[in-house]
């Protein structure tokens, strides 16, 4: 029995992959720019600490 060659990657997969990489890069850049503390503090004015009220 002859094995078929591997299929070519569909164009929609390439488009989705590019979008996924862009989203990941933006997300990581935002997290790292906040020293890994993306949370309430990011959304506060400067000088106000990320105090959680439970």
């Amino acid at each position, binding site marked *: *029995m002859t094995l078929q060659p591997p299929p070519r990657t*569909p164009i929609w997969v390439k488009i*989705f992959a590019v979008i996924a990489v862009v989203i990941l890069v933006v997300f990581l850049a935002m997290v790292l720019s906040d020293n890994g503390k993306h*949370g309430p503090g990011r*959304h506060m*004015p400067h000088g106000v600490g*990320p105090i*959680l*009220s439970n």
Partner: protein
Amino acid sequence: MRMSPRLTRFALTVHVVASVGWLGAVLVFFGLSVVVTATPDVQTIRGIYIAMGAGVWPILIPLAFASLITGLVQALGTRWGLFKHYWVVFKLFINVFANIVLLMYARTITFLAGMAEEISISSADLEVLRGPSVLIHSSGALALLLAATALSVYKPRGVTRYGWRKQQSQLASSGP
């Protein structure tokens, strides 16, 4: 391990309910965040953040986790597999990414809800509550979940290298 047809249908029903519920909850948050950024009424803004704070942990996060877990069960227990088809891989990426961002942003929602509950609210705090953060996050989540829904419905063609190898080995083993 393949699930029986009856169990597959039940698992699919649970997955659809969890995922549609998550999408619906995100739609509600999106609508509320539009009002927050548009309304001049401070009491409305405060009420919305308190409502969002009340809903994020008991509703949004359980639905998001349920969607992820039932999706994994659905993929691993059926012929689709988790890494055989590109559309399943992308759905997994979307679901995991959305869950991570949601878990991180839930802390912010809780914090903002606590701020909105305070008796007196400063103009600086009000500016934070009126900010676009919640609208950006909810619209991003909405876009991701709509993309995941479209992938589920259309199931665009495309087999990964792993899926192709699996198919070839199955063809070889079932050959004459």
